[in-house]
């Protein structure tokens, strides 16, 4: 076996994982009080605000793209469906890992599955996330079946793809919006710039924006690191769709602020104002402004930049809701402790590592189509009907 080359990023990765391992030790031996800056006044922090809320949001590419390819039947996007589903699947696994850190008694994480409270949004989210992770694992299973040549299972999986995708889109719609519904019950605690009865609608719309932006982002990253990418015309199509989606989101967001008369809260001295402005700049005005320029919209780097801004913007939005927007009520500031930050970084690093390993050992990027064609001629292009044809 060849010894892995020592590169700058690999050193960083190992460092992050080592510090993360130590922080994990602190977390599980000394408890939440010693390992976080959480308190009775601030019971949810970085792990909920970023790892869970943003993690789920950033995994939205999975349902957006599977719907595009299988429901809208835009097969030209198929080459990136595997990396996107893998990212989504990894995303949900990492969200679950983060939850194990955040829950006071993580070993009871399965309790909502048997101890029901259907009135609870969190109960609904727990069920949706569990079911959707199962759906994602089944969607992704084709890669594993193909790698180890389980063709019978592969055939079975292909037959289930459409129901799986429909279930996945429904489950995603529900829990993406429900992460917003979590905050419906705190009208007195969440700052009115963010508290609105239409939180679930905004969360769903932003999940679609993020899903599109993540697809552009991932495609660009893959182009850089794995030499695989979407053709520019397809990226442009995603960019145009993102522009429309961001437009809709921005209009809904501002209509809501106007109707609730919340815009007058944007005063110079209010600590919420700069964060709100930053959020809107990043997730709305900057990417919309950029994408409105034909030159940017048609250029791979321009699309990449717009998608990154958009992702940062919606991350800011989730953090504003989970953390900043609650600070005024809590009467205190919250900033995560080093342990919280290092565990979050370690979880992200683990995600990158697993992704890289998966790309190395599984048929993620190498043209799934051509490989399949060699191995099993009938399943090329995912044309299910032909399966029956050959079998008969």
């Amino acid at each position, binding site marked *: 076996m060849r010894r892995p080359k020592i590169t700058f990023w690999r050193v960083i990765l190992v460092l992050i994982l080592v510090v993360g391992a130590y922080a994990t030790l602190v977390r*599980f*031996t000394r*408890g*939440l*009080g*010693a390992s976080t800056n*959480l*308190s*009775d006044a601030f*019971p*949810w922090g970085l792990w909920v605000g970023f790892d869970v809320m943003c993690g789920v949001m950033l995994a939205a590419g999975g349902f957006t793209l599977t*719907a595009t390819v*299988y*429901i*809208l*039947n835009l*097969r030209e996007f198929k080459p990136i469906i595997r990396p996107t589903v893998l990212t989504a699947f990894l995303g949900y696994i990492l969200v679950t890992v983060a939850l194990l850190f*955040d*829950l*006071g*008694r*993580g070993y*009871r*994480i399965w*309790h*909502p599955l048997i*101890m*029901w*409270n*259907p*009135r*609870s*949004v*969190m*109960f*609904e*989210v*727990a069920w949706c996330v569990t079911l959707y992770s199962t759906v994602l694992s089944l969607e992704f299973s084709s890669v594993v079946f193909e790698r180890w040549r389980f063709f019978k299972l592969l055939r079975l999986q292909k037959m289930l793809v*459409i129901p799986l995708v*429909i279930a996945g889109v*429904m489950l995603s*719609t*529900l829990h993406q919006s429900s992460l917003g*519904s*979590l905050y*419906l*019950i*705190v*009208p*007195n*605690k969440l700052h009115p710039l963010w508290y609105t*009865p239409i939180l*679930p609608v905004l969360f769903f719309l932003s999940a679609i924006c993020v899903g599109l932006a993540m697809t552009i982002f991932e495609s660009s990253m893959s182009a850089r690191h794995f030499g695989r990418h979407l053709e520019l015309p397809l990226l442009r199509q995603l960019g145009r769709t993102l522009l429309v989606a961001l437009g809709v989101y921005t209009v809904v967001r501002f209509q809501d602020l106007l109707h609730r008369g919340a815009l007058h809260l944007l005063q110079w001295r209010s600590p919420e104002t700069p964060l709100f402005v930053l959020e809107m700049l990043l997730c709305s005005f900057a990417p919309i402004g950029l994408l409105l320029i034909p030159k940017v919209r048609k250029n791979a780097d321009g699309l990449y930049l717009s998608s990154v801004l958009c992702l940062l913007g919606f991350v800011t939005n989730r953090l504003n809701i989970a953390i900043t927007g*609650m600070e005024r009520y809590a009467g205190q500031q919250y900033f995560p402790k080093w342990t919280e930050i290092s565990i979050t970084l370690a979880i992200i690093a683990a995600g990158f590592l697993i992704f890289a390993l998966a790309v190395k050992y599984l048929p993620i990027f190498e043209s799934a189509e051509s490989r399949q064609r060699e191995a099993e001629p009938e399943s090329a292009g995912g044309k*299910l*009907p*032909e*399966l*029956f*044809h050959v079998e008969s």
Partner: protein
Amino acid sequence: MSKGILYDATLCIACKLCEKACAERNGLPYDDDIAAEQKQSAHKLTCVLTHQDKFMRRLCMNCQDPSCASVCPVAALRKTPEGPVTYDASRCMGCRYCMVACPFSVPKYEWDKPLPLVRKCDMCSDRVSRGLQTACADACPTGATKFGVREDLIAEAKDRIAKNPDTYVNHIFGLNEVGGTSVLLLSSVPFEQFGYRTDLSGEALPLLTYRVLSHIPDLVTIGAVALGGLWWLTNRKNEVARDENGDDGGEPGGRKAHATS
């Protein structure tokens, strides 16, 4: 009949016997240092606040329609018909949504323990179910904390305000707040001075969630039909196009036959 507690701050002398009785009943330590603490915590479930020469108790309000019980994903928190909002520690996984959701920020967490639990006053549910009054009411020497049937306590509170309108703020805190609470408060100074919010809606907060959650079954069925239909439409369009191009000899197989039938 649903039980309740009426705390009349004007009768309180801040002897803190209620705090002591509460600690005893809940198996928590109590000494002078803890008595001096001016806030609720995992080891101090009720607290007598002092503001100049005025006093005010803080304890779980035991809401009529509690946010904590509504949000708890494992139904560890429940409203009992007798009034108390109870906590089943064996169910709790420690998500702390109850702490976020509570409009009074009552549930507290055992942050220092490796395997923590939520702690909150449960209006002595074991005592109440045996027909006894709460430990705090039992211990109160002046009658400032009074246990009884909630309706009777409301009538009494109204009566006290009516008889001494100059003494009391004309507000029974807990009568309407977030749909009403089992604990009712009377005071001679504005409740805000003790951190009680008087801008709380008179509507139970779980309704805000329920309005959205109740649409989910409809949304799922509509969505499944719409998505399935959309797939059928787009898929059929492609197949027709393929047929017209003479691709694959127009033999799309079982699924088309199934889908178009």
